[in-house]
């Protein structure tokens, strides 16, 4: 996490010389002055479904500190995925214990060890992700760790007893203009935010994604994980289109110096 500063400087330095980061995205509607018209209607694929493809970033809903914004400007959900819920997330007692602790006593964040973010934190990292919608398969390419997630839309059922994994197994189907994604098969030990809100291997996640206009995705995420939470809960996230740019490669482990200084196990 602390490495963010260094990486942000890298990102800033890269923009100057790597022309593809200023490459015009094909198919973006533009205003007469050439700027992307992000409030234009959502694009659609040949079969009439909304096309979720694009490079997406977080909605900056967290005020900057008095001395200016961090290079990596994280949203509220980065720290607390349930920040918008009255009373917060319905933690089971053991989960509430984790979240109550403050660093450095709150240890065990996979991100601190450069392990994968999992599918919820993929939406709250200030780095970019890119959605590519193809027939039968939606792919989310993740700038962080240069990794990906596959969401099968070819009608296959979720596997019944899969090998647990960091991103789980995901299938999607359209309900009107909303893509509904069901995921399960996670490994134990995932965190949903930096506060430590856990996800266990028994967790199931539903995402309902809607492209409300050219520049905006609304994602409703429902987490049903009775081992960690007393009842299912739902939060809404917004993702904004990042036009005329592309993903860089970001490796947490590159020149990583934090590990030895992290306390806990």
């Amino acid at each position, binding site marked *: 996490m602390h490495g963010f500063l260094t990486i942000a400087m890298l990102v800033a*330095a*890269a923009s100057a*010389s*790597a*022309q*593809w980061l200023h*490459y015009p995205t*094909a198919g973006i509607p533009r205003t007469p002055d050439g700027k992307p018209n992000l409030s234009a209607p959502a694009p659609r694929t040949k079969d009439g479904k909304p096309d979720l*493809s694009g490079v997406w970033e977080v909605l900056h809903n967290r005020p900057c500190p008095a001395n200016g914004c961090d290079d990596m400007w994280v949203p509220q959900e980065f720290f607390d995925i349930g920040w918008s819920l009255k009373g917060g997330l319905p933690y089971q007692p053991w989960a509430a214990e984790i979240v109550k602790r403050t660093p450095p006593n709150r240890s065990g964040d996979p991100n601190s*060890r*450069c*392990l*994968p973010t999992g599918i919820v934190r993929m939406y709250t990292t200030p780095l970019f992700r890119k959605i*590519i919608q*193809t027939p*039968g*398969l939606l*792919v989310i*390419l993740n700038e962080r*760790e*240069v*990794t*990906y997630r*596959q969401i099968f839309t*070819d009608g*296959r059922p979720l*596997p*019944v*007893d*899969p*090998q647990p*994994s*960091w*991103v789980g*197994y995901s299938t999607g189907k359209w309900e009107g203009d909303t893509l509904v994604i069901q995921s399960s098969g996670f490994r134990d030990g995932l965190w949903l935010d930096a506060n430590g809100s856990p996800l266990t291997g028994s967790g199931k996640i539903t995402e309902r994604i809607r492209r409300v206009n050219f520049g905006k995705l609304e994602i409703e995420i429902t987490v049903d994980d009775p081992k960690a939470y007393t009842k299912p809960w739902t939060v809404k996230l917004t993702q904004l289109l990042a036009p005329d740019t*592309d*993903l*860089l*490669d970001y*490796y947490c*482990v*590159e020149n990583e110096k934090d590990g030895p200084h992290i306390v806990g196990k």
Partner: protein
Amino acid sequence: MFGRMILASTLFAAVPASAQWFKIATPGTPRTPDGRPNLTAPTPRGPDGKPILNGIWQMNGKYLQNIASDLKPGEVPYQPWEEQLFNSRQNGAGGRQDPAAKCIPGMPKLDALPYPFKIIESPGMVMMLFEGFTTFRQIFTDGRELPKDPNPTWFGYSVGKWEGDDWVVNTTGIKESTWLDNAGRGHSDALHLIERFQRHDFGHMDILLTLDDPKAYTKPWTVKEDVRLIPDTELLEYICVENEKDYEHLIGK
């Protein structure tokens, strides 16, 4: 690297019993009367008549160990400094210099990994999703030029175009610290990589890899790598940093 590979292949063998997607029937696969994939059926083609490269593929594993394994001794046209560097890395010496040892795969070695990878064509861009390191390449097919002076990256910048039935991918801007193979061959910042994908039938493809790097090699040289289709399965997850125990045992700095 070596340790992880053995571990990963053990995992690979153990998984199919419980994870059903690894035994899923790939739609569109031609089959013999007994239901088995017919891997010698003709190359599938799109409406434009070009071969379709979509599918899950697996590289012959020998090229990761030695990218020049089909060449005769003396056929790799090293510049003297590159040959010296290569020789200094023999028998695992300098293992720590390989970024892949720190879980950063990088090109061109990424292409030679013996784990399955998936090619997905989409408008303007072809994705390669790799099981190894759970990572990806983007190869742009929207007609853009390679950037002139890009910030070097682990994967470089890639554009693809058709030349007859060959899909030709040009890549530049690869960080000079990446390795070509486990044998320890390197390259310079001038590396221009040309990959020629040739799908011969449903189940078989060659990748002709040309390394054009005048700083490290006296002339361009080419290797032919064979790739086979892996039907009726899916990619697994491979997280290199998870429980990583190799690096401390590697030598070099």
